[in-house]
């Protein structure tokens, strides 16, 4: 239990630090630093998580791994719903995203939600990048503790 709390504290400090820094440099709402931190964490952690795992069959198999193993390692739960159009778009729906579940669930803090999902967007992007899938990850928050991550795979 203790390590979960540590991760949450560290993350909220990170959000605070980055927003304060970008406000100072007159770049309000610039979350790219946060996204990049997520990217490099995801890139590294996936190396460790896939160590004992047999090779992936295909792209869907890889995304499923993100939904189950990566998510339960980092957020202690799995993604609640995964949808795909089988053409490179995946939607990961988490009904109670951990970083948002501590905020009040009304509409009051809806506008500060992007700050709390930017790191995770980067995390997914980094993990997939190291597994050889280049993609764009965006997040969508409609009602508060829930969050949808859209993964758009870029094929060359």
């Amino acid at each position, binding site marked *: 239990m203790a390590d979960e709390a540590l991760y949450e504290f560290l993350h909220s400090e990170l959000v605070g630090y980055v927003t304060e820094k970008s406000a100072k440099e007159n770049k309000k709402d610039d979350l790219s630093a946060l996204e990049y931190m997520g990217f*490099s964490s995801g890139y590294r952690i996936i190396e460790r998580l896939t160590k004992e795992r047999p*090779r992936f*069959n295909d792209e869907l198999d890889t995304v499923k791994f993100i939904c189950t193993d990566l998510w339960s390692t980092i957020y202690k739960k799995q993604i609640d719903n995964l949808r795909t159009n089988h053409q490179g778009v995946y939607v990961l729906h988490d009904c109670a995203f951990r970083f948002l579940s501590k905020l009040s669930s009304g509409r009051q803090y809806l506008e500060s939600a992007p700050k709390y999902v930017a790191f995770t967007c980067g995390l997914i992007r980094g993990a997939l990048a190291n597994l050889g899938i280049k993609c764009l990850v965006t997040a969508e928050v409609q009602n508060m503790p829930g969050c949808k991550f859209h993964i758009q795979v870029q094929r060359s």
Partner: protein
Amino acid sequence: MAVCIAVIGKENSPKYVACLHSENELQFHYKVHTALDVVEEKLSLAGKSNCDVRELYLGLLHSTEEHKIFGYVTNTKIKFIVIVEAANTTLRDNEVRTMFRRLHAAYTDVVCNPFYIPGDHIVSKKFENVVKSIMSGNS
């Protein structure tokens, strides 16, 4: 036990090559280079028939008169190549697997080091020590 251990990156660039006898280093570079073709072939085969080839360990890639070359590819497309002397007939498959497993564990530690930039050449004392102990055969 092993005479040469190499780590090859995603785009087939060498990240780390260590040999027991440094005077033959160039020769080993050639051997590792040739082995990469076999690795590629095995990986593309694995995509078609997904029976038991999903294992990370690829087994014996090829053998010459004096050496045997083994390969291993991680999920993140990093290749490990280990060359052992063919004269060493007591070597079992399991021992080779253990070597790769230790190498992989050491490599993940390097990648998780925040000061290491992924894709760079590996410069790490800890990693080097693991490689040395694998080469000398105390596992």
